[in-house]
């Protein structure tokens, strides 16, 4: 397990190095390494350290957070299709973030933006659970997914409604929140996110063992010694915080939490002691790669990174959906 994680980490570093190299100005690997040590020529120094590295770090953090929260949602809901974006949680967080921006809290704000996004995420989780689990015991997969999609659409409609009343500049910024983008990356943004995400990701990784039990079933987890109610509350709050912070940093980027855990389950199984750290590493790698594609493929223009992840994620989602139906 440690060996596999180490290989993933190496792959992640290789992808990050690649991301630092490519762009409108190609920077060779040696110059990238020089720049990291502060010894490159001024142009390369600015491009690598000032522009690309903050963006790579931001993408890595958000990718790690979203992939991890996808895996946790899947275990909590015992559904391989659960994912922050599909469940409408990302849209809830985006609504929180947009509300904060419209009410004049600045984009770089360390506290207001992540926390209003967190509030939106909590609201979405609450609504989805109330709709899907309201009438009886157990969550119906179809109702759960429908609720998530419908609630997500509703939040997006409110976002569009709100930003219609905003000025053009806010409109443009807020619109990016709906599809997700790292174009606003800065060292400050990367730092802000890491303050929240690093402890949350590490903390969630430590909960792998009880999460294993929960992924088998709440009744079994209870009788195996897990305080299910308290544990679920901790997990929902922590994942909502992670999603909120990720969305506050880069907008609602979909399907990362679906594609990454699914791929890793195929490689190494569903034991969360492996899956959670692997999700953090591979989520970072996936997002850095997706963002690199997003900013280079139609250069000099730039795609929202959410377009890239959706183009990869939707086929995976559909494939999982069909396969899941066969199971039942």
């Amino acid at each position, binding site marked *: 397990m440690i060996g596999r994680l180490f290989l993933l980490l190496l792959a992640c570093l290789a992808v990050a190095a690649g991301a630092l190299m490519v762009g409108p100005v190609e920077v060779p690997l040696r110059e990238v390494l020089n720049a990291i040590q502060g010894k490159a020529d001024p142009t390369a120094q600015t491009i690598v350290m000032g522009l690309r590295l903050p963006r790579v770090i931001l993408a890595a953090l958000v990718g790690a957070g979203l992939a991890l929260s996808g895996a946790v949602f*899947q*275990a909590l809901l*015992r*559904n*391989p299709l659960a994912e922050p974006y599909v469940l409408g949680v990302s849209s809830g967080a985006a609504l929180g973030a947009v509300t904060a921006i419209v009410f004049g809290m600045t984009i770089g704000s360390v506290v207001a933006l992540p926390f209003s996004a967190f509030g939106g995420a909590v609201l979405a989780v609450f609504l989805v659970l109330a709709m899907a689990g309201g009438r009886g015991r157990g969550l119906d997969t179809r109702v759960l997914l429908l609720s998530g999609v419908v609630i997500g659409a509703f939040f997006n409609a409110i976002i569009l409604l709100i930003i219609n009343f905003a000025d053009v500049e806010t409109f443009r910024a807020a619109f990016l929140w709906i599809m997700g983008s790292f174009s606003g990356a800065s060292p400050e943004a990367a730092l802000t996110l890491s303050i929240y995400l690093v402890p949350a990701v590490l903390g969630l990784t*430590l*909960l792998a*063992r*009880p999460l*294993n*039990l929960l*992924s*088998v*079933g709440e*009744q*079994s987890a*209870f*009788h*195996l*010694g*897990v*305080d299910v109610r308290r544990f679920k509350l901790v997990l929902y709050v922590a994942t909502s915080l992670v999603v909120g912070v990720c969305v506050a940093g880069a907008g609602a980027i979909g399907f990362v939490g679906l594609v990454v855990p699914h791929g890793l*389950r195929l490689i190494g*199984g*569903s*034991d969360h002691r492996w899956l959670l750290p692997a999700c953090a590493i591979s989520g970072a790698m996936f997002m850095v790669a997706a963002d690199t594609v997003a900013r280079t493929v139609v250069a000099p223009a730039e795609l929202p990174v959410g377009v890239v992840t959706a183009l990869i994620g939707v086929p995976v989602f559909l494939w999982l959906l069909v396969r899941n139906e066969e199971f039942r």
Partner: protein
Amino acid sequence: MTAVFDLKGVSFRYPSGRREVLEDIALEVAPGALFSILGPNGSGKSTLLQVMLGELAAPTGSIEFGGRPIRQWSRRAIARQVAFVPQGEPLAFPLTVRQLVEMGRFPHVGVLGRSGPADEAAVLRAMERAGVQKLADRSINTLSGGERQRARIARALAQEPSTLVLDEPTAALDLHYEMETFELMRELATESGFTVVLATHNLNLAARYASNLLLLSEGRIQATGDPASVLTHETLERVYRWPVVVTPHPGPGSDAGAPQVLPLSRPD
């Protein structure tokens, strides 16, 4: 000796329900007993198990495990004493048998602990005892119903409890697995000092293997005691609303004389 389970005046109804699912239940399970809970569909067997184990909170009556109110036990402490085998567990994600059985060590290892050689040994012993050691690295999804059930029993044994509680452990199992399960339960109770509580629909096997029976209908105890006093013609016809004859098992061995229930065809 303190009873393992001691229930007095326990009633329960679901928040949305109109009627009591359990009404004024009193029972005592002695250490080393093989205690079987019987009753028609919807009679409250599963609910009684859930209430006994503290999964559902009963508003009235007292429920003690080992002389202490069940809801006062911490989750991990009670899970080191009592293991529960649920009726079925649809797995959303593929797991191997070994991974499932290892989960039984959670009450001993905890959230942040690391499992050691003692845990590994307990997992192996449990898999051997339940007869799934050859299946250890197979995915649960590829197992038959009987094999899955044995994997769940192995997980319960890995908890190294003193008491096993099983909810219809042989539902949907064929004759072979059903007999094997009952044999294992008797072995655990008589040779290894386990206390076993199980809910079942199989009156005849309960009559042969259990030391105590409790017959439930519409949430009330209809009869309780040894098999001969519970499985009587009158009680069974009233509870199951079907004509039956009760006849002694022809033997051989310890089965001889155990009351066996034969349902009759509908009278013309």
